[in-house]
């Protein structure tokens, strides 16, 4: 019954999965661009974002169409509401990957990351990419255990972000003003994109259970 409608709903879910795949790979590639001063990788992230934005727009239009025409209720309604939120979050994750890639491009052929901070940055980049990919898996599987893990993963990023800032403020390190600003920004981008991935975890929890996650946990982020 209502085959076309269910196909259209599935299309929204498929769009989100595709989007998460794209932004997951963009985050990894942006980290490569950053650490290896890889201009090709940076350019790929920047131009690749167009596909993410196109999917975002498509999901938006599909959602408006479904809401206007199909009167979705119950889990169908939550699929669309959370679909809108999640596509918004994924689009932002993609934008942060672009920001990171642009920093790498601006400093090319020099590297943004001084040797002393390489391992922190690498760890941050890897954790961020892992979170982005996991967010995609959570969307695809609606696995609440995995969704809960995402919140813990975000704590790792927050810790790394804090230690990065500490290193930047340490007077014995002199990275130069420009590099310090870039590093502070890049650290912030990773931290923010991980937050967007966490909010996907909340959205999936709401999608599955119909219960809003405790607002305390939002505030704690």
């Amino acid at each position, binding site marked *: *019954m*209502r085959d076309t409608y269910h196909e259209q709903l599935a299309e929204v879910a498929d769009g989100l999965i595709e989007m998460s795949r794209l932004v997951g790979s963009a985050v990894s590639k942006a980290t490569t661009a950053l650490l290896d001063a890889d201009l090709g990788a940076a350019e790929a992230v920047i131009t690749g974002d167009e596909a993410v934005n196109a999917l975002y727009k498509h999901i938006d239009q599909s959602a408006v*169409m479904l809401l*206007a*025409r*199909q*009167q979705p209720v119950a889990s169908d309604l939550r699929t669309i509401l959370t679909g809108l939120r999640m596509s918004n979050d994924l689009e932002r994750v993609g934008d942060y990957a672009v920001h990171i890639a642009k920093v790498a491009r601006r400093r090319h052929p020099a590297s943004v990351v001084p040797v002393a901070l390489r391992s922190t940055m690498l760890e941050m980049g890897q954790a961020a990419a892992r979170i982005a990919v996991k967010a995609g898996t959570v969307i695809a599987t609606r696995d609440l255990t995995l969704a809960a893990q995402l919140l813990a993963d975000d704590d790792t990023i927050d810790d790394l972000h804090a230690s990065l800032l500490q290193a930047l403020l340490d007077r014995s390190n002199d990275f130069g003003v420009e590099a310090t600003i870039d590093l502070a920004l890049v650290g912030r981008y990773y931290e923010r994109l991980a937050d967007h991935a966490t909010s996907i975890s909340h959205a999936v929890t709401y999608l599955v259970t119909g219960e809003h996650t405790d607002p305390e946990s939002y505030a704690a982020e």
Partner: protein
Amino acid sequence: MAKRIVAKDVDAYYGAFKAIEGVSLTIEPKTVTALIGPSGCGKSTFLRTLNRMHEVIPGARVEGSVLLDEEDLYAPGIDAVAVRRTVGMVFQRPNPFPTMSIYDNVAAGLRLNGIKGRQRLDEAVERSLRGANLWTEVKDRLGKPGAGLSGGQQQRLCIARAIAVEPQVLLMDEPCSALDPISTLAIEDLMTELKDRYTIVIVTHNMQQAARVSDTTGFFTIDGPGDPGRLVEIDTTQKIFSNPSEKRTEDYITGRFG
């Protein structure tokens, strides 16, 4: 095959009363067009001008023209009965012929058109019942009275009867208003299937139904009691239900008037 309908400046009267005025629109083949609007806005009257059913009422007449592809249904010398064979109709309440079996209900129109021979009729009855998504439910009781079916099944029987004579256009006047929600969805699914072969025009009070099933939606309204109904806006259903051009359409579909 499915035909394009072009209405040009159609007025319809009941005696001296002008029920609709100046309706012009184009309905593309193999699409579902929904006509919505408040009670008395003339949407059913307009629908009935599309197969010359309006003039069946004493004193009723139509001005303007309705073209089916290139042919004007109201040109002199056109046979109204032939028009109704080409442009089939399904009504609000399921109205199977009460004394006839399921089989005979579907075969009635074919026999009337001179189709004979058990095998030909059997084939056409099965094809029509399959087309109306009713075959599996009734194939073992084709000899039983059509009136013994559930409301939703009766309505699908009426659709089978309508498509048995292979019309090019199917008009539906509130085909689901007497049905429960599940039967309603079954009929709506059926419309989506039927539009591969027919041009479908449906009048419905149920805006959500119009939103769900149609490709194009037309909104009719009246300015006040005694005024003729007019077509306010017709556009893609997507546009009408997400961003209509006319404020009156917006007010109606959002429940602010009507």
